[in-house]
C-alpha cells in the first residue's frame, strides 16, 4: 500500500522500542539508556515521551507489562508479545522501503 507523505516517518519510535524489547524485557529508563547506547548517544529526545509510546503499544497488544519492586521502587517491565513481533516485522519492512526510496532520491535526484 503506498504511504502518504504525512505518515511516512510514523512508526520510527515504535520500531526502535520493539527492536530493543525483542531481546529482553526492560523498564522505561533502561530502555532509554539502551537507545542511547545503541545509537552511541546520537539519538537524543525528551526521555519522558517514551512512555506514551510504550502505553500505546501496550494498548494495541504489542507489549505486555509486569510490575516488580526493585530497591523499594515499583518498576513496570515491558516485553514484546507475538502481536508486537508481527508489528515489528511490518514496521521494519515499511522503514526499509522508506529508507531505500529516500536513498534513491538523494543519490540520483530526478528533476521534473
Amino acid at each position, binding site marked *: 500500500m503506498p504511504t502518504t507523505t504525512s505518515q511516512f516517518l510514523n512508526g520510527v519510535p515504535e520500531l526502535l522500542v520493539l527492536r530493543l524489547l525483542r531481546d529482553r524485557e526492560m523498564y522505561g529508563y533502561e530502555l532509554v539508556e539502551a537507545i542511547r547506547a545503541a545509537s552511541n548517544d546520537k539519538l537524543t529526545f525528551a526521555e519522558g515521551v517514551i512512555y506514551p*509510546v510504550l502505553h500505546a503499544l501496550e*494498548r494495541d497488544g504489542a507489549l505486555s507489562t509486569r510490575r516488580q519492586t526493585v530497591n523499594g521502587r515499583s518498576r513496570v517491565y515491558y516485553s514484546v508479545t507475538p502481536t508486537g513481533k508481527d508489528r515489528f516485522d511490518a514496521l521494519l519492512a515499511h522503514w526499509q522501503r522508506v529508507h531505500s526510496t529516500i536513498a534513491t532520491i538523494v543519490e540520483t535526484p530526478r528533476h521534473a
Partner: protein
Amino acid sequence: MPDRLEVMREDLLKAGLSPAHVHRYLRELTEHRDDIVAHLIAKGAEPHLAWAEADRRLGSNDALLLPMLADRRFRSLAARWPALFYLALPLLCQLILVALGSCVLLAATETPLRSVIIDLGHGLKLLTYAAPIVLAMALFTFSHRRRASQSWPVAGALASAVLAAMITINVLPSLPDQPGEISVAIGFPALLPLLVIGTLVLLPTSIRR
C-alpha cells in the same frame, strides 16, 4: 513550589484520561527522573545540578503532555461517551435492580418469606427510591476524581430520580378466595417522590460548592 509533574496531573485529568492511567504515567516519569538523578549523582554531580539536568532530560511539560492528549485512545470511556456512562448506565442499573428485586419477590412467594411479602415489597420500593441517591453520589464522586464537567452527572442524577418516581411496585398478598399479585409498572412520575429524590440527588453538588 509544587512539583511540575503534579501540576501536569490536573491537565491530564481534565483532558479525559483515567485517574489510574494518569497515576501510572506520572509515577513512571517520577521514577525515571529519580533514576537519572541517582545516575548523575553516582557520577559525581551536585544534587541540585543533577535534578536540573534530570528535569531537562525528561522533557518540557508540552513534550510530556501532547502525546498523551493527542491520542484519543488514552481517553477514558467516561470521557469518550459521557452520555452512555453518566446517563444510560445509571438508568440501566436501576432497571436491573427493579428486575432483580421483582424476581426475588416472586421467588420469596414459594418460601416461608411469603408471610412478609408485603414488607419485602415495601423494601424493594425503598431500595428503588434510594438507588438514585446512591448512584448520584457515585456519579459525582467519579466525575470529580476525573475533573469532568458536572453537566452529564447532573443530567444522569436527575434522570435517575425521574425514573425512580415513575416506577410503582405493588404487592397484594393472596387471600383464601383470590391469588396474590406482584406488579411493577412505569408510569407518570409521582410528584412528591420526584421532588424529594430530585432534591436529595442534587444535594452533593450544592455541598461541594
